[in-house]
């Protein structure tokens, strides 16, 4: 028999497909009494630190849920287990590994990777195979404008990061008998997708109050120097300065605000903790900075499994003694696994489509905050909270419902 080249390809393809199916069913989504979740996560490369924070959060949740009896589906109780692959902090590898998890390992339930960039690379894959993914570490607004049906995120999206500081500035203005529209805002954002999302949220809120934006600088992605922008700040004397540019932006701003003795009464910036500005520049220089966070252990959220936020914090530290503080990346990863467990119990099914519908109907209270997904898949039940650095401690000052401390205004740094 002669086989034409085209036929040869067809045979080869069929062979590979058959092999894929066979191996897929051999290691199915549920093995015995274990439900297998999958995640590509950054264990090496530039996101390794946060990737490992997230992985520890996943693992902690899995252990707690299993210790409490697992997940009950159709009267039988199942344990959870997560299969991880290291995406090396590169989006292309992340997408490859998602394919591998779904096609070769037969994973039907995905947990997210770390960072918006990786989530953006993986979401089209899970969407293509109609595999639901609950992610905890991709905040970019653009993830939720693509019409994805199988993507759910437990965290607040990036445009909410600093929006609360605008609200706070308006409150302060009112208390001083001024109209919020008199507030002058200076903005310095790194020119990258995440920071520009944060900026969009600030601009929207500033417009809502009719505030004046007197500086709107987009810092280049590479060089970490803000002196030109800060010189402008000195000249124009805004009431509020907002900065966002990942850890580099926070580290640079923290240093140069101190060096140039910036007197702005209110300064809000993202990534204070990630850049460890207090550790680097001391409590005096960073006094009064406002830093948004997804979660803080002092918040009064709670749920039956993890207890309160403070109890989660204590238990996690006991399980992972290398942590002195629990990063929010870990808490939200834990929440993502809890969302999966909740969806299994409500769906009483292992079918990805049923589970997707159950996920879409999620409405739960957790130690991490409320979780309820919008049509687009982002969490609309949990606000960003704003913490102020007060004598070197991060204290929640807004929104007022969750505040544990009074806002110190104007800030009184010691340069």
């Amino acid at each position, binding site marked *: 028999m002669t086989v034409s080249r085209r036929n040869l390809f067809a045979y080869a393809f069929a062979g590979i497909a058959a092999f894929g199916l066979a191996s897929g069913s051999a290691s199915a989504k549920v093995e015995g009494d274990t439900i297998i979740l999958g995640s590509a996560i950054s264990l090496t490369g530039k996101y*390794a630190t946060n990737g490992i924070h997230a992985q520890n959060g996943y693992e902690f949740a899995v252990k707690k849920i299993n210790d409490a009896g697992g997940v009950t589906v159709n009267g039988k109780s199942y344990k959870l287990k997560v299969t991880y692959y290291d995406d090396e902090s590169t989006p292309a590898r992340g997408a490859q590994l998602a394919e591998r998890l779904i096609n070769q390992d037969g994973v039907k339930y995905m947990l997210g990777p770390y960072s918006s960039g990786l989530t953006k690379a993986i979401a089209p894959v899970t969407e293509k195979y109609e595999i639901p993914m609950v992610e905890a570490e991709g905040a970019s607004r653009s993830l939720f404008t693509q019409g994805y049906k199988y993507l759910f995120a437990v965290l607040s999206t990036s445009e909410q990061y600093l929006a609360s500081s605008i609200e706070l500035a308006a409150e302060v203005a009112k208390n001083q008998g001024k109209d919020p529209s008199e507030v002058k805002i200076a903005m310095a954002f790194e020119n990258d997708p995440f920071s520009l999302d944060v900026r969009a949220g600030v601009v929207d809120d500033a417009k809502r109050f009719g505030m004046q934006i007197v500086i709107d*600088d987009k*810092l280049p992605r*590479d060089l970490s*120097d803000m002196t030109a922008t800060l010189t402008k700040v000195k000249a124009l004397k805004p009431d509020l300065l907002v900065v966002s540019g990942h*850890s*580099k932006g926070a*580290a640079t701003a923290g240093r140069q605000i101190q060096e140039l003795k910036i007197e702005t009464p209110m300064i809000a910036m993202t990534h204070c903790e990630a850049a460890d500005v207090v550790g680097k520049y001391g409590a005096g220089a960073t006094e009064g900075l406002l830093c948004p966070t997804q979660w803080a252990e002092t918040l009064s959220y709670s749920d039956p499994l993890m207890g309160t936020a403070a109890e989660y914090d204590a238990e996690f530290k006991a399980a992972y003694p290398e942590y002195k503080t629990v990063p929010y990346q870990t808490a939200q990863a834990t929440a993502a696994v809890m969302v999966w467990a909740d969806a299994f119990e409500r769906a009483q099914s292992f079918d990805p489509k049923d589970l997707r519908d159950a996920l879409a109907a999620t409405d739960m209270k957790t130690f991490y905050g409320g979780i309820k997904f919008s049509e687009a898949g982002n969490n609309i039940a949990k606000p960003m909270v704003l913490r102020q650095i007060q004598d070197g401690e991060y204290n929640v000052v807004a929104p007022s419902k969750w505040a544990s401390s009074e806002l110190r205004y104007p800030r009184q740094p010691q340069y």
Partner: protein
Amino acid sequence: MFENLYLVYLAPLMGVDLILQGLFIGALFALIAYGLALVWGVMNVKNLAQGDMVILGGYISYQATLWGYHPMLAMPVAIILMFGLGWLIYALIIRRVVDRDMFTSLLATFGLSLLIQQVLNLIYGPEVKVAESGFGNFQLDTFIIIQNVRLYSLLIAGALAIAIVIFMKKSRMGQAIRATAQDARAARVLGINTDRVYAFTYALNASICGAAGVLVAMIWVIQPYYGIVYSIRAFIIVTAAGLGNLPGVILTGFGLGAWENVAGFMFGAEFAVAAVVIMLVLVLMYRLLQSYRVRQVVR
């Protein structure tokens, strides 16, 4: 843009501050570009790992702070350590590519750049680090605040540059380096051990990068992947100044720093890099026109 010009018009001292800050930045760029020009000119190797060597120097000063020493004390250590490392890198890698075509050396130094990044990432993690100098500031005016660390770095960069120039002019090795740069084969014929000259040049460049890195860690921030910032600027400076024009490299470094800072203020920070690159294009066009004119004269 016009409101920014108006601001400077209202407070002219602010303009002075911008230019001063720019010159401080420029001094460091000049130093880094000087090392690049040296290796490029003498060995015809375009060192893509230039910025990563700077960052490596930065981590040496960061490590000093971890051990409780002042980061400035790391300067001589960085110079010596990086010299040794530079020599080692030459012996292991660069020696094999120095006589090959441009792409081989580009690939080799690019690989080296990746290697340095990943090793630093493994040791120190991907977080942003700084080395606090605690030197403080002095204030001349509301708008002119000089960070002492930048002033010192200007002085140190200047001193290093002068030392290198004297070294190149007066010392035996300096003369050998210049001879090799002019014509490596002729130098070899005349008994210069060009292999040693190359090794020394590359090691000297690594030292310069190390010293610059110590200053970078005290002025800005370091992270394993930030080397590219310094590589790019060094390449821009050397391209604009022209090869073999070392005083030109230093002047261009200062000019680039000042122009970048002023342009960032005038047009908004997002256009600072664009302004620099446009200036580079203008310089290159001017040179091209000039060379046409020269050719016409010859004809």
